């Protein structure tokens, strides 16, 4: 088992023929992901990377019966692309693009919730189930099929957690980057639910950062609903207040959202804290006593 994606995933790439879409689709196909086709308005009928291209999601869904889509279109068009995919009947959408206006995401979130669609991202590295399917921009080779579920708000930090758990032999069941935006499609809690129910996942690594209170909400949820051990690292312990640290969502506002508060809350709720970025893997080993 795993979560969200596996070898049965039939993927459509939105923004397929653009430079980002092309680069990452090539890598995903090489990894073994079943990309069935792509959508680029105006390029319908052509073939790209050996797969058919369609003008719209409706056409692609009709022809190929996909069950997931990934979005590489520019930020200003993402609202339309996500809604188009959701309305075409896709139930899992991964949006990689960074820089979508927050008010667009408010609207998107409401629409996808109404349609019962799961959105991962935006502004995220995507989702991977090692050895089965890679829907995203993460380097496939650092992953290894295994027992750790990883959830993170950051791309490269996820890779650190992956690398460390691979090096120590644990591997990963699935890894999900939920993204660094203020209004993400899916929350830590959504992913914790899935990992808790997944047989393959023995322990969960939650990589958080400053800003908002997603980690605090996750901590409360873990206390009441998660039986598996959770190991967490929170980035931004040295970040100053009031400054946006790269990610739109990473800002300490009005004294709220500090790493210290998050760590305290997580500890209080029984989460194991890796106090240093380089000790995520060793903390997992310590908790699993291996």
């Amino acid at each position, binding site marked *: 088992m795993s979560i969200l994606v596996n070898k049965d995933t039939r993927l459509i790439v939105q923004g397929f023929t653009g430079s980002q879409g092309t680069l990452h689709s090539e890598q995903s196909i090489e990894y073994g992901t079943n990309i069935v086709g792509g959508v680029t308005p105006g390029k319908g009928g052509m073939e790209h990377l050996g797969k058919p291209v369609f003008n719209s999601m409706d056409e692609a869904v009709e022809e190929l019966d996909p069950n997931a889509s990934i979005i590489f279109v520019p930020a200003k068009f993402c609202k339309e692309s996500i809604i188009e995919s959701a309305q075409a009947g896709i139930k899992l959408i991964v949006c990689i693009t960074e820089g979508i206006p*927050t*008010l667009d995401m408010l609207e998107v979130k*409401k629409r996808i919730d109404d349609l019962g669609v799961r959105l991962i991202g935006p502004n995220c*590295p995507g989702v991977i189930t090692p050895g089965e399917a890679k829907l995203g921009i993460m380097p496939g080779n650092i992953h290894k099929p295994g027992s750790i579920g990883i959830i993170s708000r950051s791309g490269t930090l996820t890779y*650190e957690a992956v690398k460390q758990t691979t090096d120590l032999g644990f591997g990963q069941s699935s890894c999900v980057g939920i993204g660094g935006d203020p*209004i993400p499609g899916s929350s830590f809690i959504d992913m914790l639910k899935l990992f808790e129910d997944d047989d393959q996942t023995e322990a969960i690594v939650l990589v958080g950062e400053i800003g908002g209170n997603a980690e605090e909400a996750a901590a409360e949820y873990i206390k009441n609903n998660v039986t598996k051990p959770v190991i967490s690292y929170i980035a*931004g312990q040295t970040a100053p207040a009031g400054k946006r640290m*790269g990610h739109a969502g990473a800002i300490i506002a009005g004294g709220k959202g500090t790493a210290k508060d998050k760590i305290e809350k997580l500890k209080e709720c029984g989460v194991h804290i890796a106090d240093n970025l380089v000790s995520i893997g060793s903390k997992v080993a310590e908790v699993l006593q291996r």
Partner: protein
Amino acid sequence: MNLHEYQGKALFAEYNLPVSKGKIIYSADEVTDACNEIGGTSWVVKAQVHAGGRGKSGGVQLINTPEDGIKFAEKWLGNNLVTYQTDAKGQPVNSILIEECTNISQELYLSAVIDRDSQKIVFIGSSEGGVNIEDVAKNMPEKIIYQGVVYGDKSLPDSALNIAKVLKLNDIQTNQFISMIDNLLRLFVEKDLSLLEINPLVITDSGDLLCLDAKVNIDSNALFRHPELLEMYDETQEDPQEAEAAKNDLSYVSLDGNIGCMVNGAGLAMGTMDTIKFYGGNPANFLDVGGTATQERVAKAFKIILEDPDVKVVLVNIFGGIVRCDLIAKGIIAAIKEVEVKIPVVVRLEGNSADKGSKILSKADIKIDSINDLADAAKKAVELAK
């Protein structure tokens, strides 16, 4: 992106929100004409900077003659205003807003933000205005209301009524307030705001509502659809290094330490700063060089980091994802030569082709400490910074 008060008020006026009659001036010569044009016998002069706390720092003053206004303008224009919200240097004053004087009978508070938890736009209102709202939230939470709203929803007047009750408005003011909330929400949505704060919203001695201040923050990601707002950008209010970085599509935040950091990815950049601190050092900056650490971008990043005279060593931490580390290594070497970096550089490469990258770095004809383990790399940087 932040707006100045006068820019925010211009938007308010465009959306039929009540603001004082006022005029913006850029030199002391313009004061007398501005006062005459506004009319009356007393005025308020307000230094325009991107920071709150201006009143307590002498940046806002009541004047009874244009001459006093000229003195105020001569004192502030071209100088920096330091408030509790700025750093020790303060923010440069390049313009002054002159407004008609308002007789205030009561000060209230009103703001709107995008709330992450409820995933709605939320109005925050309080009967306690003109003070720091965080203090009110802490000491008198019963005097604050948080009211989620939905644009285009029919229940908006009811939401406005809920807030009006907490603000203890009378019937006439409540009617004014209902249309005010409607206009503010329209402004918030149409102009892609991320924050809107009116502190204070006042009741004048004639019993009317008036927006006495305007703090407006626009979602930078949405500026592509607001060229008219982009024109309001005031670079002088930004940290020069941060502004330069933003121009080059790098995200940079300057800090107090002496270890320069160049990292790919925002999360890893924060994690790297924390790691430096963990081993007893102090980061000089946050810098996300982005997913494609090309020679050009790395060179630009070095230039920005080295602008800071405190920086004694630079720690480069790159987790090669799709981009191969051997290419990144070549880019780093070329960039160090191009920028003529004279202080020690510690490079940690991990991920895609990291071994090849390290080999290239260690064979380079310039001195680079190439260390693959992040803990060891951070320790080395801390040691070199001492």
